C-alpha cells in the first residue's frame, strides 16, 4: 500500500507576520509541523513491517524545507517529494490544494493522510479541499484508524462525541493529535535519513499552470495586520461577600451567561 502524508514545514520559533509582505515571516529555523508528525506516525504504524508498503511525504514549500522534512525520513518514512517553486509562494487554500492534488495524482497513493492543523496559520481545512479535487472520500478528525480489506474505519471526533465512519480505499484521512504519540527518530534513523530519496519538483513538472498557483492562483488576500482590540481595563473587585453576585452581574452584562 502506498501512503502519502501531506506535510507542512513551519517556522520553529514564535511566529511573526512580516509587515511588508503581510505574509508569515518564514525566515529562521524551520521544522516539521508538529501535527503532521501524528500523520507520519500513523502512516508508519499502518505500514508496520510490510516491505511492500511505502510512506511518501508530499510537501509544498521552499527548497530549504528538505532539512525539516528529513525528520519524517528519520522516523521511518521512505521518500520525500517537495514541490518547490518560487511561483507557488503566497498560495492560499485554493492554489495550494490544487498544487497538492496534482502532486498526489502523480503519486497515486491508496491513502492520503493529513495532520490536524498547521501550526502557522492554524487553518484546519486543507484536507477537505484536496479530497474534493482528488474526488475521494474523506474522513477527518480521526482519533483511531484501522485499515483492512481495502476499507478504512475511522473514529471521528466531533463536538458531540465520536462518530464511526467507514470508507473504501483510495481515500483521504485527516488525523487528530489524539490518535497517537509520534515516535522519536532513532539515531540510526537520523543518520540514514539523508540517504533516502528526496525529490524536488517544480510546478511545470506537475503540469500546474502559472495562473493556478501563487498569488495569481489565490482567491483570498490580506489587507492589513494590526493589534487585536485591547481587552479593555481589568475590572477589579475586592470581595466583600458579594463577589459571587458581582461576577454574575458582569457575566450577564457581557452576555457570557
Amino acid at each position: 500500500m502506498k501512503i502519502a502524508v501531506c506535510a507542512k514545514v513551519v517556522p520553529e520559533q514564535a511566529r511573526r507576520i512580516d509587515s511588508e509582505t503581510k505574509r508569515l515571516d518564514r525566515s529562521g529555523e524551520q521544522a516539521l509541523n508538529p501535527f503532521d508528525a501524528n500523520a507520519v506516525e500513523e502512516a508508519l504504524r499502518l505500514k508496520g513491517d510490510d516491505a511492500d508498503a511505502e510512506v511518501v511525504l508530499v510537501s509544498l514549500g521552499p527548497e530549504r524545507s528538505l532539512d525539516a522534512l528529513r525528520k519524517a525520513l528519520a522516523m521511518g518514512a521512505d521518500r520525500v517529494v517537495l514541490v518547490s517553486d518560487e511561483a507557488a509562494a503566497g498560495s492560499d487554500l485554493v492554489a495550494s490544494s490544487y498544487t497538492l492534488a496534482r502532486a498526489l495524482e502523480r503519486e497515486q497513493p491508496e491513502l492520503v493522510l493529513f495532520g490536524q492543523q498547521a501550526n502557522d496559520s492554524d487553518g484546519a481545512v486543507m484536507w477537505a479541499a484536496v479530497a474534493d479535487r482528488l474526488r475521494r472520500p474523506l474522513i477527518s478528525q480521526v482519533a483511531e484508524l484501522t485499515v483492512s480489506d481495502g476499507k478504512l474505519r475511522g473514529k471521528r471526533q466531533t463536538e458531540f462525541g465520536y462518530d464511526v465512519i467507514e470508507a473504501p480505499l483510495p481515500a483521504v484521512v485527516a488525523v487528530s493529535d489524539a490518535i497517537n504519540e509520534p515516535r522519536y527518530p532513532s539515531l540510526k534513523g537520523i543518520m540514514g535519513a539523508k540517504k533516502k530519496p528526496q525529490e524536488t519538483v517544480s510546478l511545470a513538472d506537475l503540469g500546474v499552470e502559472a495562473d493556478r498557483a501563487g498569488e495569481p492562483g489565490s482567491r483570498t488576500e490580506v489587507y492589513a495586520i494590526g493589534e487585536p482590540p485591547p481587552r479593555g481595563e481589568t475590572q477589579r473587585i475586592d470581595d466583600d461577600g458579594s463577589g459571587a453576585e458581582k461576577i454574575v452581574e458582569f457575566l450577564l452584562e457581557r452576555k457570557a451567561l
Partner: protein
Amino acid sequence: MTKPSEYPPPFDVSEAIAPPTDPEDERIEVGVAIVGAGPAGLACAIRLGQLLEAAPTVAERLGEVPLAVVEKGKQPGSHLLSGAVVNPRALQRLFAGRKRLDDMPFYGPVEEESVYFLTSNRAVRIPTPPTMRNHGNRVASLAQLGRWLAEQAEEVGATILPETAATKLLVDHGRVRGIRTGDKGRGRNGEELPNFEPGADVVARITVLAEGTQGHLTGAAIDRFGLEGENPQVWALGVKEVWRVARPLRRVIHTMGWPLRAGAKYREFGGSFIYPMGEDMLTLGMVVGLDYRDVELSVHDLLQELKTHRLVRRLLEGGERIAWGAKTIPEGGFLSLPKRLHAPGILLAGDGPGFVNVPALKGIHYAIETGTLAAEAAFAALQRGEAVGRPGALASYDAAVRQSFVWRDLEQVRNMRQAFGRGFWLGGALAGAMTASRGKFPPGDARTEPDADQELIRTDRARSYPAPDGKLTFDKLSSVFLSGNKTRDDAPSHIRVQTKVPPELAELWTRMCPAQVYEPTEGGVDVTASNCVQCGAITAKGGRLTPAEGGSGPEYTLT
C-alpha cells in the same frame, strides 16, 4: 549557617561510565565522535573535515560516518550563550584560505569601548584595564555563530546529530570507546512511555569531549582517568538579555561595582557587559561568581536592577526585550585546568576543561583553538594508523595546547580571579600588579575553594530587587518562556539535589536559579525540572545538572 557542600547531590560520577552494552551489530559506528556542537566541538569537526578531505585514505578507514557531532539541544546554537566579543584569531586560523572574517556572522568590529564603575546613581568612567582591551575583536551572538559553524562543519562532511544527549562515556579495558546517547520517551518516574526510544552506543575510534561548562562526561572522564588539576573548578553565572533598541549603541561597555557589593565577606565578583548587535539591537548581561555567599542573591534580579540605572535605562529607552538566557562560565582558569587533557581514546577541549580567560572575558577563541588542536592531534594519530586507544597516542594534543597562545594567555592571568576572592579593592590592586608584571607578580599560585564550600550568609539584598513591570524589568517565568524552553512536563527530572534541606539552602537555590526551578517547601525544596534552561549553576552550589532528554531545554537564537 550551612554550606551547600554539606548536602551533596545523590549522584556518583561512576553512573556516567559504562562499557558498551548494545549487541555489536546494533552499535552505531563512527570514526570520530565529538560531543557538543559548540565552538570547540564544531571547530574540531571543521578541522578534521578539512584534514580528511585532503587525505582520502585516512577518511576511508573511518567508515561510512567519519565524523559525528552529538548535540543535546534542538539544533546547534540552541544551548549556546555568551556575551560575546570574540577574538577572531582562532577563526582566521581555522578558515585560513577558505573564508574571510567578513564571511562570518559577526556584528562588526569593536570600535569604542568604555568601562564604568557604577554606584546606584552614578557611572564613573575608568580607564580600560589592559586585560579587557578589545581592539580588533568582533561582537557576535554565540548561538548564531554556532549555527554558522554547524553549516561549515556539514559542508566538510560532518554529520551533526541534534536532540541527542550523551549520557555515558563508554569505557572498556581502560580506554574510551565512545559514548552512549540518552533515552527518549521516559515518564516522570522513569517509566517507558508508549513512544519510548532507548539510547544507543555510539562507538568511535576517538572521542572528543566539547561539552562546554559543567560538561557531564568531562567530569566523569577527569575522575575516571585521574586528570584532576590542582584546584577545583569554580564558576560564575551569567544572565543576559537581547533588546531591540531605538538608537544604535556604538561602543562596547563593561561595568563593575554596583549592583555588586565590594566587601570581602560577600564574595561578589563580577560585573556587567553591554554590547551592540548591529544597528537595532544590543545585548546586556550580568555575570557573578558562584562563590557568592548571600542566600538572597539572584543574578537574574541583579540584571533587572542594573537596567534601572540611569546609564543603562537610557540605552534601552523605546526598546523591547527580545531574548533572554543564562549559562555558567568556568572561572578557575589556568589553575583549575585538568593536569592532562587526554586519556586513551579521548580528548578534552573548550569550556569543559575550563579554557576561559576571566579578566579578559574570553573563552570562545580558546574553545575554537583547542578544538582545532584536538582535531590535528586526532588526525595525526589516525594517520599513523596505530592503535589510538594506546596510552600516549594522543599526547601530542597536550603538547600542542601547552605551546599555544591559549596556554600562554591563561598562565599570565592565572591568579587574577582568585585575587578577587579578597574583595574588589584588594583584588583590583592585585590584578593590576599581575597585569603589569605579566603574571610574574605575585609569585606562586593561589588556591581555589569550591563554590559549594562557601558558608552562606543572609543580608537584606532582595529588598531592592525591582518588581517586574513587564516593560523594562521582567520576572523569571516570562524570561524562561522567552528562552524558547518547551521541555516536556512529564519528563524525568534531570536535576540531582537533595530535597530535604534547611530553609537557607532552599532559599539560596530558589534565588540563584534564573529559571525558577526551585521553590522552598515545608522541610525542603521542590524541583520543577521542566523550567530548567540547563545553565549549570546548581552543580556549583550543591547539586548536579545531568543531561536532560535530547531536544529539551532552551532554544536560543540570539544569545
